């Protein structure tokens, strides 16, 4: 999946669910936690969004800031998950596949 599309989709999700109309600009590399954009419940909502939208499974061991704390981090993490699923021969998420579900 095109990384630019992923970034755009993520930004839209964050704008709609966490910024709630606030005038706040943030860069793709900015930390969600440091900028008080998302708290730990927000992370759970983000994970649910990723799982539902892209058909991947995010394991407990992957709930780390290095994977989820910025648009850059989420895009890279998602890219790895989707690439892994694709190279394992799984069909694309858009076709309703479970991605890397064990």
């Amino acid at each position, binding site marked *: 999946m095109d990384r630019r599309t992923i970034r755009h989709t993520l930004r839209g999700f964050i704008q709609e669910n966490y910024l709630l109309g606030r005038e706040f600009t943030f860069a793709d590399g900015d930390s969600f*936690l440091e900028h*008080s954009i998302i*708290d*730990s*419940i927000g*992370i*759970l*909502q983000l994970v*649910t969004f990723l799982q539902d939208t892209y058909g991947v499974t995010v394991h*407990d061991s992957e*709930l*780390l*800031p*290095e994977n*989820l704390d910025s648009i850059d981090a989420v895009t890279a993490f998602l890219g790895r998950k989707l690439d892994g699923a694709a190279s394992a021969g799984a069909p694309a998420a858009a076709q309703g596949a479970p991605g890397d579900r064990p």
Partner: protein
Amino acid sequence: MRTGPLGGAEMLRLDPARETERIVLRIREQVFDRLRRKGAVVGVSGGVDSSVVACLCARALGTERVCALLMPETDSAPESLRLGRRVADALGVPSVLEDITPILRGAGCYERRDAAVRTVVPEYGAGYRCKIVLPDLLDADRYAVFSVVVQAPDGETRQVRLTPEAYLGIVAATNFKQRTRKMLEYYHADLRQYAVAGTPNRLEYDQGFFVKNGDGAADLKPIAHLYKSQVYQLAAYLDVPEEIRRRPPTTDTYSLAQTEEEFYFAMPLETMDLCLYGKNHDIPPADLAPAVGLRVEQVERVYRTIETRRKVTRYLHTPPLLVEGSEGD
């Protein structure tokens, strides 16, 4: 001013006699002069914090001007009521028993909570028990993401990560407990023209470990400036029964026994206590680490967690906002 190498427990040592005297004077002045109330209601849970507050109020106001409220419900540990009674009896303060189970049933507390659990554990039902827990946050930069631990009637347990809806559903339903207790504390306070004494310690108050308009509500909070280990020092000085002082701090909120460590702090309370002190006193992680038995990066992680919790729980401390006068609050 701090000098020399840090000693873990030494940092939080206080003079219990002097501190007791200071708090007692303050309670007396706050209740009688500032609040113009005739005494204090204390919700006594059988834990160390509420036991210490009851002792301090009894010393400050006189035993006959303290009302110890015992408010168990169906999920409370049986020893909570026994220990609460023991404190009230030892102090000689009047106690009132209010079983809050019928109120909680009427509000749908258990039903709503169980429905939320069932969204992630569909078989959850009669005879099952549950609690929610956090992962260990000391050893990795993890998010504080909750899981539910359920125990089937046959004793088998399993742990499932919560969805946001399940987490919020369980917490919102469970918060009925703290709010119901507070409602009854104010009922008994109104009846007697008393004030309500809250029981949070510094860790809980600073880190937002309370329910807004539940256990977070009170007219005075006599131990909110004390670290947990300082509360234990006062408890020993005030002769709080040893059984209470030895009891692990629990939330006494879920049907499975749950420590405060599992539910909120995600690390031993002694460690959290010392790290909060270190952060409040600008002690560099490299200086604090040997005193608390942690690695430098672990202390750095705890410092970050403390700061994050302060940010995300600011809402809990925020009073109602007014159209005028609250700009920029």
